[in-house]
């Protein structure tokens, strides 16, 4: 049993409950206990760091400190939260941030997807797969937040990250390399400037399809929302080709949930605007 402190983040509490549920099911299947930080609050995300630097560091620091008191390494589900927490941690370790927060250099912060992509975890995942997704061609979309900046996030292969590809491969799927792994989906731009959000998502969908993918695997709730929620509108645009199939957008944990045969993730899958079930059932029937 692996025990980790857990910071779910605000997105998972509301719109992205499907990610939350799939995490819950998958970690249980992997004998991982995620212990939610007591009384955790928002990490600040984009809103904080675009307004006030001190606040943007203080908000995550508070949560970090709380998790440290649990004496466990910390797993974070959302890439943005992961990055803000890592940033605060670094500032605290370098003594560039003063406040009533403690940080233990021996306790690590993991972004959950990378944690599951370590060699030992992949071994365990492999042993739990009962419905290998053989023949499912996917591209892995990491989004722009999880890799940047490398000094904070610790990525070395930031132009071509691999961890979701590894997870997809171990689940039996065929991950296809493509040039847009970490290209912006528009993030929260979709709200103030929808046309920008739409055009960025459209580009990603186009290239995913051109690469031969049948689905896109993501690790970020906002990316999932953008790629999924805007897809029907984009498919209704005048220049859209109706013959191109829709691309289901799956969290890596949903992918694993399917491969592990966990029915409990079905409600979450059903909540996607682009229904993944026809593709999955077709695949598993073969």
């Amino acid at each position, binding site marked *: 049993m692996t025990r980790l402190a857990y910071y779910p983040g605000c997105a998972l509490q509301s719109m992205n409950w499907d990610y939350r549920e799939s995490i819950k099911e998958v970690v249980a299947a992997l004998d991982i206990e995620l212990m939610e930080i007591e009384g955790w609050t928002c990490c600040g995300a984009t809103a904080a760091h675009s307004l006030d630097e001190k606040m943007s560091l203080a908000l995550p620091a508070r949560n970090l400190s709380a998790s440290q008191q649990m004496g466990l390494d910390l797993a974070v589900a959302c890439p943005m939260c992961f990055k803000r927490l890592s940033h605060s941690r670094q500032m605290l370790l370098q003594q560039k941030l003063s406040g009533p927060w403690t940080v233990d250099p021996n306790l690590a912060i993991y972004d959950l997807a990378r944690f599951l992509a370590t060699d030992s975890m992949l071994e365990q995942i492999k042993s739990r797969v009962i419905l290998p997704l053989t023949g499912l061609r996917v591209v892995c979309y990491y989004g722009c937040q999880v890799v940047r900046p490398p000094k904070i996030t610790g990525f070395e*292969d930031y*132009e*071509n990250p691999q961890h979701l590809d590894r997870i997809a491969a171990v689940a039996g799927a065929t991950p296809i*390399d*493509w*040039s847009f792994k970490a290209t912006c989906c528009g993030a929260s731009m979709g709200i103030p400037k929808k046309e920008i959000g739409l055009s960025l998502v459209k580009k990603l969908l186009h*290239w995913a399809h*051109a*690469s*031969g993918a049948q689905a896109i695997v993501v690790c970020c709730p906002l990316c999932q929302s953008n790629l999924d929620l805007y897809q029907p509108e984009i498919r209704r645009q005048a220049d859209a080709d109706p013959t191109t199939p829709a691309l289901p957008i799956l969290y890596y944990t949903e992918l694993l949930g399917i491969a592990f045969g966990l029915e409990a993730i079905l409600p979450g899958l059903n909540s996607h605007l682009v229904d993944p079930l026809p593709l999955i059932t077709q695949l598993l029937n073969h």
Partner: protein
Amino acid sequence: MLIPEPKFSDAVLVVGAGIAGMQTALDLAAMNHSVYLLDRSATIGGNMARLDKTFPTNDCSTCMISPRMVACARNPRIKIITLAELMDLQGEPGRFTASIRRHPRYVDEKLCIGCRQCVEKCPKKAPNAFNASLDSRKAIHFVHPQAIPMAPAVDTANCIYFQKGRCRACEKVCPTKAVKLDEGKPEDLQIEVGAVILSAGFELALVPQAGEYGHGRYPNVVTSLEYERMLSATGPFGGHPQRPSDGAKPGRIAWIQCVASRDSARNRNFCSSVCCMAAVKQALITREHDAESEAAIFYMDIRAHGKDFDRYVLRAKDTYGVRFVRSMLSQVVQNPENGNLLLQYYDRDSLEQAQEEFDMVVLSAGMKPAPRIMPLLNRLGLALNRYGFVEPDFEQPSNTSREGVFVCGALDGPKDIPESVTGASAAAAGVAALLAEYRSGETVGEEVRSLRDVSKEAPRIGVFVCHCGKNIAGVIQVEALRDFALTLPHVVAAEDFLFTCSTQTQERIKELIRDNGLNRVVVAACSPRTHEPLFRETLQQAGINKYLFEMANIRDQCSWVHGKEPEAATEKARQLIQGAVARASLLEPIEEVVTQVVHRALVIGGGLAGMTAALALADQEIHAILVEKDAQTGGMAREIHHTLEGHSPRRLAQALALRVKTHRNITLYTWAEIKALSGGPGHFSGIVERKGKSVPVDFGAIIVATGGQPYVPSEYFYGLHPGVMTQLELENRLFTHQGPLPHTTVMIQCIGSRREDFPLCSRICCSAAVKNAILLMEKNPAGSVYVLYRDIRTFGFKEDYYKRARDLGVIFIKYEPEAPPEVQVEDGALEVKVFDPASAMHLEIKPEILVLSSGVRPRPEAVSIAKMLKLPMMQEGFFMEAHPKLSPLDFSSAGIFLCGLAHSPRFMEESLAQARGAAARAAGLLLQKEIHTSGVVAEVNRERCCSCLTCVYCCPYKVPSMDAQGISVIDPRKCQGCGICAADCPAKAITLKHYTDAQMAAQTEAASSR
């Protein structure tokens, strides 16, 4: 008990046998030092051997480098040790002990004859690193076709015997038992040397897999060196580039500049200096090769700062249609449907983002020192700069921080071939000066033997036909040819040999000459290019004039190219031998001209370059006569306070002046000019005219260091408005605190350079502007400095200062030559108007000071020197060296050398390197007792000469001249034996000795008769 101390040694260890290592070895050998030339790989040649063509002459790289390789191999003073690395160095200058580890080749170099049977039979393939893994080679392999030593090496990681204990096919098939798979232990050697030169070269700095341009990820993204191999005729595709993904011909190719250079994020902020020109060259060759191709270069600045480079770039643009797009790319995207690459860039015409698709992308990746050398650099305790290169010293550019250890080539900073060759010669000069007192004093020259007088004898020819292992004999019937030879007129002896070039065969040949009274020899074997000198020496040793030798190439020109038609090949060989014998029968003994060398040099010009050259010679105990026109030495250096890096040229000039005045081996004439220069290499003479008095002087070599001067602008109100000045004048103002500090300064680059009448770059002006801009901002942080430029050429480590200027707030605005800045004077105030492409705005700036970055011009006095010595000049007035790449410091006329601004605009440390290099080149000549010039020279029949001057005009070396009677005179000491004048002379008055019409006619006729 006394512990024996190591003796002083004048031997030199050169670590790294690329072009720099080879050049320094040759220069040292010419100065009578013995040299150990090491290389980590199985061959000498380095990176230059991988290039296809070189800029700006588009010469074939292999054609240029293989004569140097052969020269190293043949030089009795140079010992080549391959597969070796320097592990440690103990001791002090003059008496070092070097510990060398030599890795096993598994092939005995002394026994190998290069027949390549082992390679053919080897069953195991591995990726060919020489061709950037674009194709494969065998486990036992030659690194490349011209490898020296000409012996293969075994790659044990890929060899079936070493991995699995089976096979040994190479051993079985080797005709000389040279392959020895069981003799494989690394050998540790200790050698005593006086000095060490590090010339370990560079590797490309690539960011694999993780990089934003997809190298190692997208198959059709290749590096510059990979593309170079694709372009090369000896490369994996025979010179026709192919896309790695599908083998298709790439029609649209894009180059991305500054990959892993000028990259602060990766702590590689320096500029790699050569990639702009390399990309332009590759694009030009691509366009030349395939008229339907498209070539686009994506760049930030085009750094064509070398001699004549801008002309080359213009040619690429105007004549070959290479497209230049100024936009730095952040990413390469692969089109999954076809493997094409998509580049998104900023289009300056539409001022919008544009996207284009290309079939292939070439990354102009930057340089870094080869990682393998880093442990050694650390062990030696050398000072490295922040990028890991050996820190170059301003005043002594080839010295490292450790005395007795020198550096040259790309190891102390990215540089191109001419700069590497210059640095190599400079390092040799440094070593020579250091070890001068330990020099053993022996000169190794050719022994003059008494030769048999064959003039009264009828021709008695010996013909020796070579098997060359299986190289020739595998295709051609050698014994039949030997028998055939005996039937030819004048042939009295014929024999066949397995390897005619072996030492045993030389003895046998000498025996045959003696026993049969032979007076002419024909060898039917390989190429005279590599082996003629060897056989000529054999003849000399046997007492026969060496010009009584002829060679028929029945290997490279016969068995190797007609391998599939053995009968036809044998017939062709028969004809070649028939022709060779016919010519041999008409060959005449030729006397070479011997000149006793005067061990003194004349240095014309007492600036930094001239003084440094004189001192470099003087420190080697060679006397230098230094002639300077002005009252003081120092030249331009006297006028400059600080360099960009903060060194003081004035202080250096003063220090050198003092040394020059007091050195026992220098005679300094100031206020003097040299006149009436005459003579030839080894012995020139002239008259020093000084204040009305004439002093006759003679010397063995001449170094031209006539220097340069600033261009005096006529544009932009210079001389008319007090606020308009040059960079030199601004610097002087700042250092002498004259006038108030300006609040707003505008600098305009490329004044007097890169234009129709002077299309060259003056190289130093960008750095001068950056230097002064930084000074201004530091003195007045609230002020503004605008630099209006065409390209910022702060190459090499000077790039750091460009960044510093930007960090300080200097504003750089690019202008196109078609729309230069406009300057007006309104009510006495300056107004500058310029279009800024970055903001797409028209700017109006009102500076207090307008600084013109005016370029460099040669001194006008150079013209009279050129006339006196018949030295070629570019139309811009700089001297033309013998070869812009491999002989930048030599003139085609032997015995005359060049350095400093007289060569081309350059920084002071570059002039210093050139000066020392020129001194090394001159010393190589001056340290010989006498020089022999080749007997293959043109001779004029005085009665036939009709004074038409054709020979004068057609000679590429400017050798023929008209004497007082108007008859052409060709100095045999200077004639290079090319034969052009003999062919062109309409009166047939000129004969090229050793290639007379009678000889050539006989050969042609005999060769073509059945």
